[in-house]
């Protein structure tokens, strides 16, 4: 019995079966195996995750960069601990992209050709790229200006650290912004439904 329930819980996650549906079926006396058998395994590419989860991930990604920027201001460039910051930044960006890809596949849609997308997805992708460009261009320009000023005012050593940080921030935006905009705006996925009989 415990094994059955454990198996059911695992299959509920795998097949995205709503708990309310399972509870109703169990109440009606439907065996766990029949409930599971009625639901096909979720197609991998249709996983987009909840909007709340996606937004948290995106805030964590850009928040990670802000945290590193703050730490770099507290540590001096000569400090050995300063060297740990670039790997943290890189790991943060890579982790976000992997999680977005594994859990949502939104990046795949951003990168897909028109023929692989329906009209809604084409519209979403175009909107994401348009907004990303509108946001990225001024940020990159301001970033360039600040890093130039940092070199002029802070000298080579400190200015290099700040310049690198700005470069990483702009690179993070450049590589993630279209996906991030898409992930931020895409509504929650529709409630899963039992298969048609």
């Amino acid at each position, binding site marked *: 019995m415990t094994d059955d329930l454990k198996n059911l819980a695992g299959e509920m996650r795998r097949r995205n079966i709503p708990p309310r549906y399972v509870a109703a079926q169990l109440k009606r006396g439907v065996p766990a195996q029949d409930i599971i058998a009625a639901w096909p395994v979720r197609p991998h590419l249709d996983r987009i995750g909840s909007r709340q989860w996606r937004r948290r991930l995106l805030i964590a990604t850009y928040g990670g960069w802000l945290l590193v920027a703050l730490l770099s201001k507290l540590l001096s460039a000569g400090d050995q601990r300063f060297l740990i910051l670039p790997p943290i930044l890189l790991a943060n960006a890579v982790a976000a992209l992997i999680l977005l890809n594994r859990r949502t596949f939104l990046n795949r849609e951003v990168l897909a050709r028109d023929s692989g997308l329906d009209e*809604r997805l084409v519209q979403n992708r175009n909107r994401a790229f348009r907004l990303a460009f509108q946001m990225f261009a001024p940020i990159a320009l301001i970033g360039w200006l600040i890093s130039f000023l940092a070199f002029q005012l802070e000298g080579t050593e400190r200015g290099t650290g700040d310049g690198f940080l700005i470069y990483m921030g702009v690179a993070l935006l450049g590589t993630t912004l279209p996906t991030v905009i898409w992930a931020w705006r895409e509504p929650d996925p529709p409630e899963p*439904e039992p*298969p048609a009989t």
Partner: protein
Amino acid sequence: MSPSIQNRIAVLRAERGLSRQQLADALDINVQTVGYLERGDYNPSLELAFRIAEHFGLPLEAVFSRQPFAPMSSQLYRKEESA
């Protein structure tokens, strides 16, 4: 934001015993798009709207409307009474 267009896709799909995936395959669109259409999160293009109506074998105005739809059963009952 564009004004929401009402549709009967969910009702028609349920009536015909189709899953979202089956309807998505028939219309050559993403399965999530079917869900968003049903929920009113996405307004289809005219071309897709026609394809949907043709798939159900109904005129466009029977599937889409700018005003909220009356329940199909009451419309049907009224039609039968007036006949």
